[in-house]
């Protein structure tokens, strides 16, 4: 029997039953690897269900820092008989299957290594409460794995102590469960696994966190005081993270009152309406949603665009169309966000790729919204938002002040003869605004979604309306210089071929480029981080004869945006599209690009892509 031999580069996948308490044990397992100094990317693959259906937790461990999803599993921890067949199929030849051998069974595959651990029996012997037995089974396999992978068991003991801080009674039984697994493995399974985790220093200066958690924290740092939201997967954890951080960081000491307000609205329409009302009145406010919510928010997005009210909206994209795949990932709201709402509308999009950028873009979005006086939509996705990532630590500059944009206060108004809410005083398309109540005689205006002149008065004069629409376009051009520019994977371009990517695809991109490089294919790569596109984006496109655009949607929406906004000829832009709801892999990207370049058939074995 061959055994996969690997150190610090492998994929382990846990198959569990939803609602069995496996998630926290699996997360602890991943955190233990991270604490060992090896970068990890755990992915929770879960059903749209609360209890009973299969759920998976896939952890890629990579000292090289390749953290995108990859096909194939090196170690499967199969805890769910319901999904044995599926789980078995995914294991790479020479890989390992760990299962609960309290009920022994034969598996069809002969090219893999079966590791038997009688988890249920071990728990029955040691724990009396049936519910506790079920929960501790998860900790027992973590203990066994720590032995099999040659890890420092103490890391897990520390993690248990941290996790149950304040619930002291739970520490001892959890450590007991950990040791049951560890001891069983050391006594019975010596030499049965050749995949190891060796201590490294690669996670120094890094954190393990999710995009939604980071975004929620970014909103706190960016000065958001009002959050209005409606529960929808996969955005819910963003609003919850904001709330949790506020409870810790935003309480007024003297009064114990909140320097924030969070409202769970009655629907997405109300959620965005509240955020608009608060921003109109000078507080920084946001909402978080997913595709179906964006559809519902369209009318209000148009109002905020046309009435020029600052606004921050997070769209944590999931599989569409319609209700789609609520618990799977996609990047399929690019167009519906860029042009949300009827009439001529265009919105500013920020597209983070990792939690650190989620934090930074969230904070930055409030400055941008105030400066440009328009909705800023942050396009994240389920993979980035809900899964934990090894990423660089958050940073903040204490000298930073909030840029509230062009706001006239009482003193400013005193000095002004002629206030017009929509007058283009500075020639950049961005007018001056006032907060309600600012001055007793000056600065009041009537905000409206109907056509209006420079003084916010209703007009049906088509020329005046066209003038206003043109100014909005000018403002949009101004915005292209304010938003984050693209990131290039190379210092100077060296190939006639380019690749454009964005968002969570970053995790698989460098690996794909490295694979292509091994084949002798060199490409220049650019990661788009915002819309409207700035000059650097257009120059990169100009500088290359052929460009791939890698996207996690069916229709090549970013490609459409590039073509429409830049008049780029379609033949120049080749789509690489993954839309099966699973995060895109490096193999998928490199195989598709390689076959297009060399003309050989795709090596990708994955169906449905």
């Amino acid at each position: 029997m061959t055994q996969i031999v690997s150190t610090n580069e492998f994929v382990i996948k846990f198959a569990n039953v939803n609602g069995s308490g496996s998630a926290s044990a699996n997360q602890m397992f991943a955190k233990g690897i991270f604490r060992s100094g090896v970068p990890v990317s755990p992915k929770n693959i879960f059903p749209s269900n609360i209890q009973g259906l299969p759920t998976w937790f896939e952890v890629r461990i990579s000292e090289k820092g390749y953290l995108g999803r990859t096909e194939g599993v090196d170690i499967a921890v199969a805890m769910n008989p319901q999904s044995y067949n599926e789980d078995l199929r995914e294991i790479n030849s020479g890989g390992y299957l760990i299962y609960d051998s309290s009920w022994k069974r034969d598996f069809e595959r002969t090219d893999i290594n079966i590791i038997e651990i009688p988890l249920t029996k071990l728990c029955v012997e040691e724990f009396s409460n049936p519910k506790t037995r079920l929960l501790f089974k998860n900790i027992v396999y973590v203990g066994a794995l720590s032995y099999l992978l040659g890890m420092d068991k103490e890391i897990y003991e520390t993690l248990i102590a941290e996790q149950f801080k304040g619930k002291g009674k739970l520490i001892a039984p959890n450590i007991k469960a950990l040791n049951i697994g560890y001891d069983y493995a050391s006594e019975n399974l010596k030499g049965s696994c050749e995949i190891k985790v060796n201590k490294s220093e690669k996670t120094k200066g890094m954190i393990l966190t999710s995009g939604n958690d980071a975004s929620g924290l970014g909103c706190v740092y960016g000065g958001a005081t009002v959050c209005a939201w409606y529960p929808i997967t996969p955005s819910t954890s963003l609003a919850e993270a904001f709330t949790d951080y506020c409870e810790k960081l935003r309480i007024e000491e003297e009064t114990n009152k909140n320097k924030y307000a969070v409202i769970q609205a009655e629907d997405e329409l109300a959620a965005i309406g509240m955020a608009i009302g608060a921003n109109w009145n000078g507080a920084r406010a946001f909402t978080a949603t997913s595709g179906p919510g964006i559809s519902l928010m369209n009318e209000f997005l148009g109002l905020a665009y046309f009435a020029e009210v600052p606004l921050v909206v997070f769209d944590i994209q999931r599989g569409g169309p319609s209700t789609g795949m609520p618990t799977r990932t996609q990047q399929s709201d690019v167009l519906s966000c860029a042009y949300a709402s009827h009439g001529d509308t265009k919105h500013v999009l920020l597209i983070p790729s990792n939690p650190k950028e989620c934090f930074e873009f969230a904070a930055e979005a409030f400055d941008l919204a105030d400066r440009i006086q328009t909705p800023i939509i942050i396009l994240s996705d389920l993979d980035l938002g809900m899964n934990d990532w090894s990423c660089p630590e958050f940073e903040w500059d204490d000298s930073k002040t909030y840029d509230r944009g062009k706001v006239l206060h009482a003193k400013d108004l005193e000095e002004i003869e002629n206030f017009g809410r929509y007058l283009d005083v500075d020639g950049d398309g961005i007018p001056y605004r006032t907060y309600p109540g600012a001055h007793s005689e000056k600065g009041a205006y009537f905000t409206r979604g109907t056509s209006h002149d420079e003084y916010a008065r209703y007009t049906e004069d088509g020329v005046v309306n066209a003038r206003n629409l043109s100014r909005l376009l000018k403002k949009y051009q101004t915005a292209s210089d304010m938003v984050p520019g693209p990131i290039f994977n190379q210092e100077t371009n060296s190939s006639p071929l380019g690749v454009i990517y964005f968002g969570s695809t970053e995790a698989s991109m460098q690996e794909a480029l490295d694979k292509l490089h091994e084949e002798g294919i060199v490409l220049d790569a650019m990661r788009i981080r915002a819309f409207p596109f700035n000059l650097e984006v257009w120059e990169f496109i100009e500088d290359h004869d052929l460009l791939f655009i890698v996207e996690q949607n069916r229709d090549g929406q970013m490609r459409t945006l590039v073509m429409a906004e830049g008049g780029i000829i379609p033949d120049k832009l080749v789509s690489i599209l993954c839309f099966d709801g699973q995060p895109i892999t490096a193999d998928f990207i490199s195989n598709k690009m390689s076959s297009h370049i060399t003309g050989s058939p795709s090596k990708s074995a994955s169906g449905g892509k």
Partner: protein
Amino acid sequence: MCAGCGHDSISAAILEACFQLNISAHRVAKLSGIGCSSKAPAYFLNQAHGFNSVHGRMPSVATGANLANHELMYLGISGDGDTASIGIGQFVHAARRQLNVVYIVENNGTYGLTKGQFSATNDLESKSKYGEDNLFPPIDLAAMAIQLGASFVARSFSGDKNQLIPLLKASMKHKGFSFLDVISPCVAFNNHSTSTKSYDYIREHNESVSETDFVPLGKEITASYDEGESVQVPLHDGSLISLEKLSKDFDPSNKSSSLAKINKAEEEGKVLTGLLYINTEAKDLKEILNVVDKPLNQLNEKDLCPGTKKLKEINKDLS
């Protein structure tokens, strides 16, 4: 507005109420949805900021605005189409959240701006200007507001200044969700002889629960009435609402009594007006959410940004 439109009278009454209460226009924010009623705020208190939002969504915009700065007075101007149909969900939730707003429905029973379709407050027996029968029963927004937990609910008539102005003044001083259902005839589409929202019909069928007077803080109450006929309700700032000639079977601080009275009037084909319900004990949204007293829109980075030191601790927790 059309000549004779009830909405103009309501605007005048709002203006008069603000004047009598010494409320500066710039400390008022006027918010509305879409429709004839929602256009009205463009024509009064021009030193106040206004926000003509989208159809039926004024309550959410008002909620956000109020959370940003609780120190302004929020006037929500809506219509029966805007509130009873497209915006009924937002109306319901703003009321149950006790949003501190004066929410006025200028109720004419018809879609005026789109030329006379029935609205959801139109009575079953009412006919349209074109002679069509209304097939569905009306929604009584005032009764609904009481059930939803609104802490101030009144009904009035645009043509009855003497009743409307004191009610408006009281609602402006009340803390919490103040709802006023103001019947406001549409002269263009719903003022004909077969309409139940016409000037003539309302004048004939109006039954007032009490004569309302608003007594500002510090003013002596001079008139006296027999016991059981007069009630003084103190508001948060110490001013009073004086309800005179109160009918004996009615207690405006009791939900069941209010709802029973409304239902009985409806059975008798009457339109019950006056202060229908009041609860001065209810907390408003800001208090429920335990929000700081300094308006959120006045907090700056010093108040809001936890800074590098805290971030380092957070980094440590995440590593």
